[in-house]
């Protein structure tokens, strides 16, 4: 592949993101602007920004790679990534916006009136954010290595530096514009090459494998592993509720009703987006099956245009895909860094603008160290594990906190600790344990189906047993979460 294409595309995206970021700098003056963009963002802008933030390396590169590698079981990933927003709409969107809190730890503290519950939540948010940034940096490493021939660490380092500079300089107001721009860039960057590839194939390219060999029934939807699929769906559907960078976006809606409308628009945007990685995955199975064998499946989207479309057209499409991939790493990482910096600066650095900047730099460099020290084991899979961890920890606390007035601080802390220990042990120690006991392997590789119910159970049981009872402000707080805004002061 021509390295100049890679350099040009990456530089262009970085420059465009930075320019839009600094353009927004003029607007961010106060702390409130920094954190939630003054809550003046319109639903379409907001939905695009949520999409831009959410569609990560796993969505852009990972899904097509996994379809190539494992077949139709990979189709559940985009379904789960999208339907997670349905769960968010049903259980969280409007009440969370009405809570008036800036971050998840703020929500926890306001609901449970406990600094300890807040600290545990903050810790989880930071851990989740760091481990979610790692696959983004590994995706950047892969992209830079494949497209420019530079060593892997260069890609990770570049993304970490760009993101911390943009976030520290611009805050979130600018990031809303950047993210919205990134969504449409990512969509274009997959849609145009996908359509071009389909036209070329329709014009008579010969596939490397016949349809029957490329799509064997053994890898098809009929051969469903029920436990793994159900557990993956639990992780993806419920994990979305607790993703820190997604939740912080909801505070930029003007009110609860707008938060709901925004979420429905997000559902539509994601549904359209995921058609294209799916198309790439299908084309890859027939036209580039060799990539699965060489362990470069995640690079499928980057390599396919050049393989099937010769000449300048192929080069241009490749540049577009590289730009889109880079936009994916930048946008997800910067969204995560914004929310992490918000949590770290409020809890440790007194909530000042300067603290936010220091925290922004810190929160991009810890995952950089992890990304440089570890090998990528498939982008979609590693992001899936972060979802399982989130679903087992923050999700039960959020849903019970919004809908069950019996939740207490002790119950929430016990539940979050249970979920964190169980799912963390399954994710980190799974390989070692399942070597000794091969029978429980699926349960450790996809733990959400049993860790989430256990976390909920512990939360409920401990809350019930908590002699101190529910916090005094619970009724007032629940009222505030669920009562519609416009005529709120006349309510009663």
């Amino acid at each position: 592949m021509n390295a100049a294409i890679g350099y040009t595309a990456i530089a262009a995206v970085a420059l465009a993101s930075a320019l839009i970021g600094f353009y927004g700098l003029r607007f961010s003056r106060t702390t409130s602007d920094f954190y939630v963009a003054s809550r003046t963002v319109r639903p379409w802008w907001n939905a695009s920004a949520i999409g831009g933030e959410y569609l990560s390396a796993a969505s852009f590169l990972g899904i097509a790679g996994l379809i190539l590698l494992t077949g139709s079981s990979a189709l559940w990933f985009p379904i789960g990534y999208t339907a997670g927003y349905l769960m968010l709409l049903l259980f969280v969107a409007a009440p969370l916006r009405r809570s008036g809190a800036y971050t998840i730890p703020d929500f926890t503290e306001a609901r449970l009136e406990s600094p300890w519950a807040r600290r545990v939540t903050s810790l989880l948010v930071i851990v989740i954010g760091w481990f979610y940034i790692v696959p983004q940096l590994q995706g950047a490493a892969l992209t830079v290595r494949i497209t420019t021939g530079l060593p892997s660490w260069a890609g990770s380092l570049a993304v970490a530096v760009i993101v911390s500079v943009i976030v520290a300089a611009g805050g979130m107001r600018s990031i809303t514009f950047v993210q919205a721009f990134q969504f449409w860039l990512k969509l274009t960057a997959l849609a145009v090459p996908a359509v071009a590839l389909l036209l070329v194939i329709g014009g008579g390219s010969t596939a490397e494998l016949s349809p029957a060999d490329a799509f064997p029934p053994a890898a098809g939807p009929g051969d469903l592993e029920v436990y793994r699929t159900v557990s993956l769906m639990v992780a993806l559907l419920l994990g979305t509720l607790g993703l820190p960078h997604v939740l912080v976006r909801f505070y930029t809606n003007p009110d609860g009703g707008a938060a709901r409308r925004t979420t429905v628009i997000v559902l539509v945007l994601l549904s359209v987006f995921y058609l294209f990685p799916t198309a790439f995955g299908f084309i890859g199975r027939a036209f580039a099956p060799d990539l699965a064998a060489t362990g470069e499946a995640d690079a499928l989207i980057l390599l396919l245009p050049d393989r099937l479309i010769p000449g300048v057209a192929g080069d241009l499409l490749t540049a577009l895909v590289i730009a889109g991939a880079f936009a994916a790493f930048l946008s997800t990482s910067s969204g995560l860094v914004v929310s992490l910096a918000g949590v770290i600066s409020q809890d440790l650095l007194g909530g000042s603008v300067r603290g936010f900047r220091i925290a922004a730099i810190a929160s991009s460099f810890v995952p950089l160290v992890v990304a440089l020290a570890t090998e990528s084991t498939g982008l979609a899979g590693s992001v899936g594990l972060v979802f399982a961890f989130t679903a087992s920890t923050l999700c039960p606390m959020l849903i019970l906190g919004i809908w069950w007035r019996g939740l207490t601080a002790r119950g929430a802390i016990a539940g979050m600790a249970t979920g964190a220990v169980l799912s963390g042990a399954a994710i980190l120690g799974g390989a070692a344990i399942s070597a000794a006991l091969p029978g429980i392997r699926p349960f450790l590789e996809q733990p959400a189906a049993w860790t989430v119910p256990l976390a909920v159970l512990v939360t409920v049981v401990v809350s019930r047993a908590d002699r101190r009872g529910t916090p005094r402000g619970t009724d007032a707080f629940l009222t505030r979460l669920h009562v519609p805004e416009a005529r709120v002061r006349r309510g009663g």
Partner: protein
Amino acid sequence: MTADDVSVTDAATDAVTDAAPARVRVTAPRPGTGTAAASARPVPGRGLAAPAPTSDVAGVYVRSLIRSQLRLAIVMAVGFAAATALFVLAIALVPALDSTFVFGVPLSWLLLGVGVYPLAITVGGLYLRAATRNEARYRSLTEQE
């Protein structure tokens, strides 16, 4: 307080077993249950005023709003999960879909690849309307006060 507690969880279990349109349980206000006292307290947090209910009747309206919204959300979530499961089961049970190729891709793969999204959007749209209606009903109740 404990009585309210139980009724909220009851609503949750009701909603799973009973998918009928939400019937709102309204109970008479009980003096001395502490709702008014509790809700008169300012909400802790970051300096934001709380729209606290000022009477027990208001508290009852709020609780019935929360219950109907929760029931709606659970019915929608269960409905989505059931419809998805049926859809996938249908694909798995028709082997002919594996050998019917459209543009070189088996129909079964195409259906799983694109079929669930319209379902999610539909459920989302239905929920949006119903949740807004629940809030409108709450508003008309509180405005009659």
